[in-house]
C-alpha cells in the first residue's frame, strides 16, 4: 500500500492512493501512519512541500525494554500514572517513538490514542530522536527583548535546520525553550547542560566548533 502526499495546504496534505484522493489529513496524522504501518511508503513529494523527516528505525534494546517494564510496573497502581511513566520512558529512550507508546499503552491498560494524545500535548515529549548535543535557546521574555531571536536565527542559518529538527549527521538538534530562569544572563543558550549566557551571534561559531571538534576526536 502506498501513501502519496502532495499539495501541501497549510498543515494539511491530501492523501492519495494511486490517482484516487482519499481526502485531507493532518501532517501529524500522516506521520503517525507512516511510523505505525511501515508498509506505507511515501511516494511522491513535490517541490516546496514539507520535508518528510526520514523516519529513524526504532532501535530499542532489550535492556531498555526491561527498564521500561520496571517503570510501568512501579507506577501502575498510582492515580494519574501516565505522565510520570512517559517522562521516565523518555529518559530511557531519549524520545517516545510509537513502539514505546504502544508498550506503555498496553502496560497501563490505556488506549494508544490517549497515550499519543498526552505525548503530543506536552512540549517536553518528543516523538523524534534528538541530536547528540541538544541546543536550546531560551525564548522567555527577558531573553527575547535582549535579542534571543537573533541567536536562534543565527543557529538555524549555521546548522541549516529548523527549530525542533536534527542535523543529518545527528550531531545537533535545536529547540526553542521557555524561560530557563537564567534571566540575569539573557540571552541564554544551552547546549546539553552547559549554559551560555550573554550570547552574541558572533560567539556561535566558536561554540559550535568546540562541539564539532569534540565529536571528531571522539569518532577517531
Amino acid at each position, binding site marked *: 500500500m502506498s501513501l502519496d502526499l502532495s499539495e501541501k495546504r497549510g498543515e494539511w496534505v491530501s492523501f492519495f492512493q494511486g490517482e484516487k484522493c482519499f481526502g485531507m489529513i493532518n501532517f501529524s496524522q500522516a506521520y503517525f501512519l507512516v511510523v505505525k504501518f511501515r508498509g506505507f511508503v511515501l511516494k511522491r513529494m513535490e517541490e516546496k512541500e514539507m520535508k518528510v523527516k526520514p523516519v529513524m528505525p526504532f532501535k530499542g534494546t532489550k535492556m531498555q525494554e526491561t527498564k521500561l517494564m520496571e517503570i510501568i510496573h512501579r507506577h501502575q497502581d498510582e492515580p494519574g500514572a501516565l*505522565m510520570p511513566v512517559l517522562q521516565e520512558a523518555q529518559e530511557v529512550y531519549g524520545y517516545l517513538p510509537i513502539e514505546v507508546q504502544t508498550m506503555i499503552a498496553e502496560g497501563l491498560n490505556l488506549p494508544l490514542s490517549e497515550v499519543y494524545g498526552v505525548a503530543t500535548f506536552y512540549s517536553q515529549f518528543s516523538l523524534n530522536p534528538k541530536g547528540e548535543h541538544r541546543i536550546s535557546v531560551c525564548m*522567555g521574555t527577558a531573553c527575547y*527583548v535582549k535579542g534571543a531571536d537573533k541567536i536562534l536565527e543565527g543557529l538555524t542559518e549555521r546548522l541549516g535546520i529548523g527549530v525542533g529538527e536534527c542535523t543529518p549527521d545527528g550531531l545537533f538538534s535545536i529547540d526553542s525553550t521557555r*524561560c530557563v530562569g*537564567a534571566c*540575569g544572563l*539573557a540571552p541564554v543558550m544551552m547546549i546539553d547542560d552547559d*549554559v551560555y549566557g550573554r550570547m552574541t551571534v558572533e560567539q556561535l561559531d566558536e561554540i559550535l566548533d568546540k562541539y564539532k571538534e569534540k565529536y571528531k576526536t571522539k569518532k577517531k
Partner: protein
Amino acid sequence: MKYLTNTKKNIRRRRNKANAIISVQKNKTLQIDISAGKYLDSGAGITEFAGGLTKRGRKSNMLTVAELANIKARMEKIVLVRKEVGEHEKELVKASGYRAQVLVCGGTGCTSSGCQAVLTVLKQEIKKHNLENDIRIVKTGCFGLCALGPIMIVYPEGSFYSAVKPESIPEIVEEHLVNGRVVKHLLYKKTVCEDGSVKSLNETDFYRKQLRVSLRNCGVIDPENIEEYIALGGYEALAKVLTEMTPDDVIKILKDSGLRGRGGGGFPTGMKWEFAKRSEGDQKYVCCNADEGDPGAFMDRSILEGDPHSVIEAMAIAGYTIGANQGYIYVRAEYPIAVERLKIAIAQARKIGLLGNNIFETDFCFDIELRLGAGAFVCGEETALLTSIEGHRGEPRPRPPFPAIKGLFGKPTVLNNVETYSNIPQIILRGPEWFAGMGTEKSKGTKVFALGGKITNVGLVEIPMGTTLREIVEEIGGGVPGGKKFKAAQTGGPSGGCIPACHIDVPIDYENLTSLGSMMGSGGMIILDEGNCMVDIAKFFLEFTVDESCGKCTPCRIGTRRLYQYLEKITSGKGEYEDLEKIEELCMHMKSTSLCALGQTASNPVLSTLHYFRDEYIAHVVDKKCPAGVCKDLLSYEILPDKCKGCTVCAKNCPTNAISGELKNPHVIDKKKCIKCGMCMRKCKFEAIVKK
C-alpha cells in the same frame, strides 16, 4: 490500619509524660552525631541525619514539639549569625562554633554563571588552609541579584562578593578568611562607599526598599538542610496549628490577614480554604501550583530552590484546615534544581516525622507527592493543572464547579501558588495584624517580582504592595542601562499588559494594575526601553499563546491565531488602518467567550499596547515605519557618506554582497539585495551605517 496503630501509640505516649523527657535526653546524643559532621553536603545532609535517627533507636520517627524546640535551640546559634549582625555579633559568632560562614548562592542564576566551580575551589582552598572546622560553607538559594552571579557572602562581616571567579577564591580565602581582611576590590561595588568603608547589603539601593517575607529564608539558609529551616522558626507554625488551633481558627487568621492568591487571580486565600473545608468529601487534596510557565518569571522557582520547606509546611497546614491527607506539588520539569531540592526536602520532612502519620503526636496525617509538569503553559490554569496531575492532556474544565468543590480526581481540592503558601507560616506565627499592616487597603502583604529585561539590576525583588513602579525601576532596579529611556513595564506575562512611562508613579497592587489594563500575574516584570517595538512585543506574546493554546475551545484556538496573523501583517508592513478596529473587536470576543483564563487574557498584551501606544501601531500601518527600528520589513539600512571612511569592512561582511564602493570612498547599499541582517551596522567602526 497503620493509622490506627499509630494513634494507639500516640495515646500511650501522651499518658506517659516521662517519655518525653527521655526522648529529649536521647536527643542530646543525637546532637553530637550531627554536629560531628560540620559541613553537610547536599546528599550527605540526609544520610547523616538518617544515621543519627537510627542511632537514636526509635522505631517511630515521630517528632514532638519539645524536640522541635531542641533542634531550633541548637541550630539557631549557627544561623542567627547570618541574620543579626549587630552588637551581639561577637557572642553570636562564639556560640555558633564557627569563626566565619561562607554562603554561596546555588540558585539557577548563579549555577548558570558557574557557582559550582567556585564552590569546588573554595572547598579545596579551605582544606588547604586547614580551616574545615572553623568555617562553615553553605550553599543557599537565590539572593536576588542574579545579574551579578556567582554571589558569595562571608559572615559575620556580611561581605558581599559579586561575580566571583574561581581564580579569585584563593585571594579571598587567604586574605579574608585567614587574615581577616576584607578583599574590597572583589566586593559588590555598591557596598563600598567612596571613603572606602563597607556598608551592609541592606543599605544598598537594591535591598533597601525591599521587604522580605516570602523570600525571608532565601539566601540565608541551606535549603537542603531541614535543621537550618527549623532554626529560623520553621515548622513552628505547623506545631502551633496542630496543637493549639482548630481549622476555623486558621481560616479566620487567613481571612483577617487579607492574604490573596499570588498566582495572578488574587482570590482571597482564606475564602478558598473555607469553601474546601465546607465541601463534603471522603477524600480531599491540597495542591501547589509550581508550574511557573510565564516567560521571564522565576519567583516560585527561587522560593522552591531557597526555601522549599516553607511550602511543605504551609501545605500541611492547609491539609489540616480542610481535612486532607494528601498533597501534590506540580512543578515544572524545566527547573531541575528546584525539583531536586523539593525531593530532598520532602524526604527530610518524612524522615523526622513532619510528613507522614500522626504529625506532632496528633491524629493528623499528611504526605506530599511531587508531580512534574511537561512544558505546557496552560497547566498554570488551575483546572488544567488538576487534569494534568490526573495524567491527561492538560485541558481546562469549565468552572463552576470550582476545584474547592470538585477538583482533583473529582474531590474537593485547595490549589494555591508557591508564593501564597510561603507567606502562610509567617502569618500564623506573627499574626494577621502584622501581615495586614503591610500593603494597601485591598492588597495586603508583599509581592515578589522577577525583574528582567532592560534594567541594570536583573533579579528578584520583594516589595510591600503599594510601592510605586518608579521606585522599583529607578531605585531598586538601578534604572535602564545604556542611558536609554524607560518606555514601559510589562507585567503578568502573556496574560498581562504594559504599563507605560506616563503611569510610572502608580502604586502597585492588584486593583491598580487591573485598571491599567495589565494584571499582577505571577510576578514577572520585564522592563522595556526605547529600543523595543511595542507591536513586536505584542506579537511575541501572541506567538507564545498560539503555541500554548490547548485547542479545546474555539475562541482561543482560532482567535489567537487570527490575532497573530493581524500582527504579523502589521509588522511586515502590509497592515491597514481598518485592521486595528478588527483587532479590537476580535479581542473583545476572545475575552468574553474563551473557556479559561488563558484565552480570556490572551488579548491583553495587544489591547494594552494598542491603548497606550496606538501611535506606534499607526506608524506601522500608515507610515510603514517602525519607530523603534525592530520590525525588519519596515527597516532600511543606509550609509552616511560623510561618516564613511571607505574601509570596506561592511562590504566584506555583507552576506549578499549588497554593499559596493571603492576603497577610501563612501560605500552604498543596494536596497534590492539587502536582506537587512544588520551585519554591516554591527561591523562598522565609524557609526556610519544607520537603520531607519
